[in-house]
């Protein structure tokens, strides 16, 4: 539904990718792991390899979670835009089809920290 206004209403979003000095935002969350309250933001170049996103973005951020070391990365399943998705760890974010402000989620079967029942 178009906005109702007295004159043409045209604005530019305030966080479009070109404002990020060549980088882009990716939001990451770990399903069923609520010690970390909310999805967190990574600000990385689209050329970054997905494995780097995991190693240098996700792992250091989530250090405090006791489940972190127990993750079997072969069993991990992923969602992008809330749909099942298989990332290629050796490819860049861009080649994995990740766009600015995409939300990715990962699910670790059998691990469930600090959030009660499954």
């Amino acid at each position, binding site marked *: *539904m178009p*906005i109702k206004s007295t004159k043409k209403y045209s604005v530019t979003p305030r966080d479009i990718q070109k404002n990020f000095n060549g980088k882009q935002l990716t939001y990451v969350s770990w399903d069923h792991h609520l010690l970390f*309250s909310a999805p967190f933001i990574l600000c990385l170049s689209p050329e970054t390899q997905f494995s780097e996103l995991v190693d240098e973005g996700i792992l250091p951020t989530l250090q*405090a979670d006791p489940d972190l070391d127990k993750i079997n990365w072969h069993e991990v399943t992923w969602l992008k835009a809330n749909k099942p998705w298989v990332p290629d760890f050796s490819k860049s974010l861009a080649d994995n089809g990740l766009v*600015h402000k995409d*939300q990715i*989620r990962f699910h670790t079967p059998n691990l469930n920290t600090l*959030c009660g029942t499954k």
Partner: protein
Amino acid sequence: MDMKVKQKKLNKKEKYTVQTRDLGWEPTYQSKDKIFPYVEYEGIKIHDWDKWEDPFRLSMDSYWKYQAEKERKYYAILDSFAQTNGHLNLTSARYLSAIKIFQQAITPGEYAAHKGFARAGREFPGAGTQVACQMQSIDEIRHAQTQVHGVSNYNKYYNGFHDFTQQRDRIWYTSLARSFFDDATSAGPFEFMIAIGFSFEYVLTNLLFVPFMSGAAYNGDIASVTFGFSAQSDEARHMTLGLECIKFMLEQDPDNLPIVQGWIDKWFWRGIRLLSLVGSMMDYMLPKKVMSWKEAWQIYGVENGGALFNDLARYGIRPPKGWEDADKAMDHVSHQLMLGLHQWNFGTSFHTDVPTEEEMDWLSAKYPDTFDKYYRPRWNFMKEQAEKGKPFKNMGLPKLCQVCQSPGLYTEPDDPTMLCHRETVFENEKYQFCSDHCMDIFNNEPEKYVQAYLPMNQLFQAPLYGDLNAWMDWVSLRDGVDNGDYELSEDKKNFDKWRNDVKSNSVD
């Protein structure tokens, strides 16, 4: 005619009518379209402004008289509170986190409401409606000012209060409130009335003020009790204005119903998201608790809101679309938000804590179905980490909802173990939301919400490029002083010392 014929004395309603709406007239030198240029575009149809019912009928002289009396009382108490070190009668300086949030987030909102009502007080073509809005406008600036004055004394002794004007515009969590009030004041006059006059004042204000003031009373904060009560006495007029306004819109034209209902849906949800902050204040920040957020919701939300929406049903109005989800979430929101605030407390201009055992038992009694199951384990984990000397902090900066600006920390309505992820694409750009209802709000007016200023996303842009230290300077946050855990804070150290000094000096 003989002017000296004695006229019958007018009753109050009649007198108020000649004192207000009779002052206006039908213009002929300029068109009404030009005089009231904003009254049509929202699509609300008003056929007869004279059908407007003035809720309270205060003439200006009565207004001055009663308001002056309130002001005299307020400042007398405030002065005496300051002169006698009243702050040392607080249950604990920990309590002040609630006041810090209030000052940083809500006080600027009072000012925004003042501006909004001044605009509405000019833009509506009905004199009766205008006067009611103008009175609310002047009341709202009163509230902003009494709050600034009330907190001023605390600022002299405690940290975190010192730069609320800068923090209003820059720090991350205040954008929940800023975006709320900016959203309302950037809307047309009718939507503004539904947003602030009806949804905020009528449906939600009791949830904000009454428990908050009781909390202040329980915790020895006489200054805030006084400003709270003093402000709330104006609020009764404002609530009535909000209710009259919605009835007026609905009675004027059946076409108004879907528009008004849409606004109720939107503003209830925006309001309830904003008030989650109050939930965390009540459940966690008051050293001496009054009632739980859920109990307050039961009384002031379910009971009163229920009665209200029953009353409005005759116009075809149904309860807000988000009502059920809000109701379900009452078992969770205050915990989820507080857990977030605590783990990000390096970035807050107030202190937080892991609740004490006693407090956790209280929470468990108040939230028997959820606290022990979902939230206690996380608090316990944080407590253990802190005891091990490795206090848990979340350095991952949170994704914020494009609409309500909360961190994405709320869970699915029916699954408290799963964060709620919602997203949409508009003009090739992705947007993220905390809930279905925030996403609906966006989808109704995407052009508006794409411009939202999300403080976290801004932090990664020029000029800060993700530099947290630079960010702290920019938001006027003094690391290690304004932020962090209360237990380790200067506020606590000082408060305990001063209290001790008092005891060692005092004569029994």
